């Protein structure tokens, strides 16, 4: 019998599954689709705004958790967040992540705002604006998802805490792609894997760079061999090069996904994609099986431990009907923090949105709780975007919560299983 069934393969599910498998447990990773990594920028943002800019997450986290006792970080704990980041960084060689929990990078977004991120792919790091710098943003004519002129102007006007000087300008190049005016980021990334294509692009850019400018490009520098592509371009241009993540599907997100899946599978884990968990069998406070819709029938998946990583409202794991009833779709777990009629959303878009924090309440070992704070299932842990209490996209905490909760759920499962 399998030891652990993980449902969902975004960052939280992948991390939980990988840690359990590497600890010697037999793990199956079930997923409806490829997961939210493909939508995210591929950075691990732990905490960016509280609501002011956070420069040092390890310093900010304990206070943040104290003031927000219902936030996932209050359950996970700042020390676990730090340990999960270390564990994560060590998983990557070749295509590496860089950074530490003691500082946030300030990286330009694809529109030129500056966003705090904690762990970032090495290929993004040279865009860090904390010490200012001279930047050249390079657009690729065939890619409709990057506008270097707007990005450069916004970056040039950006105000960082240090007040360091930033200068930025933009150029547009036309990579050699015949007969296609509209090329997606993923298609471009595959083209960059080809050394001939990379050489041609490098030649075009080198004619346009000036002085000691660092060169920023949309995050499409290779899919299979991103490190070689990035290093090759830096070498050819003789200067730092950095990528800027953009609209989904995200190339750095796909890289992250593929690396973690490969590690999980090579450790002996089993992945079943196209299988949606639709219900569960329980006995008292134990889950005995999860019912899964696959190949036109419902099949029970039995395991000793279950990890719910199916996501929140964004993935459809938690749904609200047109009669405003809210439901978690696998275990029918109570969804907490759903605002009353008339208060679900603020009419002002940039206000905090009460509905954003609705989700599943958990205890310190990530088991789900009912309304009175009683643990519902002893062999079920809940991770990632379905946990109540965060407005992750505002706080810039989504991947941090996913990584650290996935990490901690694995700790719980390993302790209980061993």
């Amino acid at each position, binding site marked *: 019998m399998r030891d652990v069934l993980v449902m969902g393969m975004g960052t939280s599910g992948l991390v939980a599954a990988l840690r359990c498998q590497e600890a010697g447990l037999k793990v199956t990773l079930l997923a409806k689709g490829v997961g939210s990594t493909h939508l*995210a920028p591929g950075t691990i943002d732990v905490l960016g705004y509280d609501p002011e800019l956070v420069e040092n997450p390890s310093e900010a986290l304990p206070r943040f958790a104290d003031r927000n006792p219902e936030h996932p970080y209050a359950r996970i704990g700042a020390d676990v967040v730090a340990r999960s980041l270390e564990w994560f960084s060590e998983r990557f060689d070749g295509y590496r992540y860089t950074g530490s929990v003691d500082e946030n990078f300030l990286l330009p*977004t694809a529109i030129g705002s500056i*966003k705090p991120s904690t762990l970032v792919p090495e290929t993004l790091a040279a865009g860090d604006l904390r010490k200012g710098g001279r930047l050249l943003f390079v657009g690729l004519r065939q890619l*409709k998802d990057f506008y270097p*002129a707007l990005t450069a102007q916004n970056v040039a006007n950006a105000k960082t805490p240090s007040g360091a000087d930033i200068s930025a300008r933009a150029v547009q190049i036309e990579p050699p792609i015949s007969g296609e*005016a*509209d090329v997606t980021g993923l298609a471009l990334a595959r083209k960059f894997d080809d050394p001939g294509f990379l050489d041609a692009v490098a030649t075009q850019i080198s004619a346009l760079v000036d002085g000691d400018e660092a060169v920023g490009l949309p995050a499409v520098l290779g899919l299979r061999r991103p490190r070689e592509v990035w290093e090759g371009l830096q070498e050819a241009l003789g200067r730092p090069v950095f990528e800027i993540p953009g609209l*989904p599907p995200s190339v750095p997100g796909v890289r992250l996904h593929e690396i973690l899946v490969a590690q999980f599978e090579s450790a002996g884990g089993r992945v079943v994609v196209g299988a949606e968990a639709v219900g569960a069998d329980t006995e008292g406070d134990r889950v005995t099986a999860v019912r899964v819709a696959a190949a036109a029938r419902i099949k029970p998946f039995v395991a000793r431990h279950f990890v719910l990583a199916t996501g929140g409202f964004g993935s459809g794991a938690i749904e609200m009907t047109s009669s405003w009833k809210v439901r978690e779709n696998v275990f029918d777990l109570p969804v907490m923090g759903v605002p009353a009629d008339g208060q679900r959303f603020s009419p002002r878009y940039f206000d905090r949105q009460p509905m954003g924090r609705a989700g599943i309440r958990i205890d310190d070992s990530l088991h789900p709780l009912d309304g009175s704070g009683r643990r519902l299932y002893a062999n079920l842990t809940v991770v990632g975007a379905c946990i109540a209490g965060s407005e992750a996209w505002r706080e*810039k905490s989504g991947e941090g919560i996913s990584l650290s909760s996935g990490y901690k759920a694995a700790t719980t499962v390993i302790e209980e299983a061993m």
Partner: protein
Amino acid sequence: MKSVQTEVLVIGGGATGAGVAWDVATRGFDTVLVERKDLGEGTTGRFHGLLHSGGRYAVKDKLAAEECIHENLVLRRVAANTIENTGGYFVTTPWDDPAFGDRFMEGCRDCGIPVEEIAPPDAFRAEPRINRDISRVFTVPDAAIDAWKLVWDCAKSTKEHNGKILTYHRVLDILRTGDVVRGASVRNELSGEEFDVHADVTINATGAWAGKVADMAGCPGVQVLAGKGIMIAMNHRLVNVVVNRCTMPADGDILVPIRTVSVIGTTDIRIKDPDEPDVTQAEVEQMLDDGEKLVPGFRRARALRVWAGVRPLFKDVRAPETSDTRDVSRSHALLDHEARDGVTGFLTITGGKLTTFRMMAEETVDKMCEQLGTRRECRTSIDPLPASRTGKFYWLGERLSKREATMHEDQLICECELIQRRNLERVMKQRSSTILDDIRRAVRLGMGPCQGGFCMYRATGILHDVERIDSWTANRSLRDFLQERWKGVQPILYGDQLRQARLDDWIFHGVLDVEHLPTDRLEDRAEREHP
């Protein structure tokens, strides 16, 4: 101070005002139209998109029904490109009296509306989603009409005839010398510049706001009640013909397939201020329940956006004095202020419906000619609008076929509405507006399932390049768009559309962090806060 001289000043850029300008200009008068916002931004752009056959009024209001079928046939000739010839059903649901169908048939025949009863199974074959308990089905020549395209085309024709269209120009006051109205003083809302428009005749075509403008001209008592109606656009075409309940006009009685969506409407609630129509949850619930009666499963379909429009319902406190004005029908009101108030050079046209906008304009301009003592033939029922000169109806595959033809040469900026980059850039240059919401209405940008989640970032970048605006203006434009969009989506965020909204939150906050984009120069902000 600069001033502008013209023969005719039209106030209001909805269908009525644009129609009047089109009529006036094509009769050869010098024309200036002023609109305080963008064309079609008020009531015109906030209806369900129905070109009435008249069937809706065939029992209750014969005159309105006759006007509708007359205009329906005229617009099919002169505004074909704005019309999709969907046809319409009137259906008897289990909640409707089957006997009403007989009165309906008779009413349609009396008014000259082509009507035919068909067997329900034939209707179910054509429209498999409609309620199988429908007992009677009647066909009428209803159609879908794109109101924005229509007003833009009226504006285009006006300009071709040397008329001027001044959007974002608010009327501050009506200029009056003695008993003669001589134009209006206006302010450019974008630049702040104020100037006078001197005109021989001023036409007040401001719909629900007509009372306010008439007051400015010193013609009190023009009371226009605002009737709020909400509409919800559903993702996909749940039906491909217009489906009406076969009953007396009521709330939630129509589902209109238009472009890539279908729109359910509507309610009718008196409100005080036409500028602030809000949407309540109870109204949303009512529309969804009514939709369920026409198309079972409606509540499980995806709602994209909800909005409220404001019908102008005319009530003249001086009614006895004008009740003999033969031009006034029950559905719209043409006020001759010379007869009514002893004020010359000023006419008010209000009320009515989009289907009859051209007829309203014709009546108004006929009256104007009569006052000026001249006769010029109306051209609007004869000469097609510029985009309709081929006489071809719009069809659903129109954009897709264009896209397929240029797939490898042009970028697709809005995947939902199939808007290509070159077309978007052309429209941005034409409009020279830095307001993304104006661009949205002009090309339907961001009006599909993702509600701008993907295309609005692109459109901001393109607008920044095309208009050569600074980054602060571009940022503001994007943020204003997101706020405007939120108004329309937040009351219907459930099911898949809530998922979509969450993805859009990730894009705009998690990936782009638009919340922290600077929207003005620090020095400008300092000056505003400490002048």
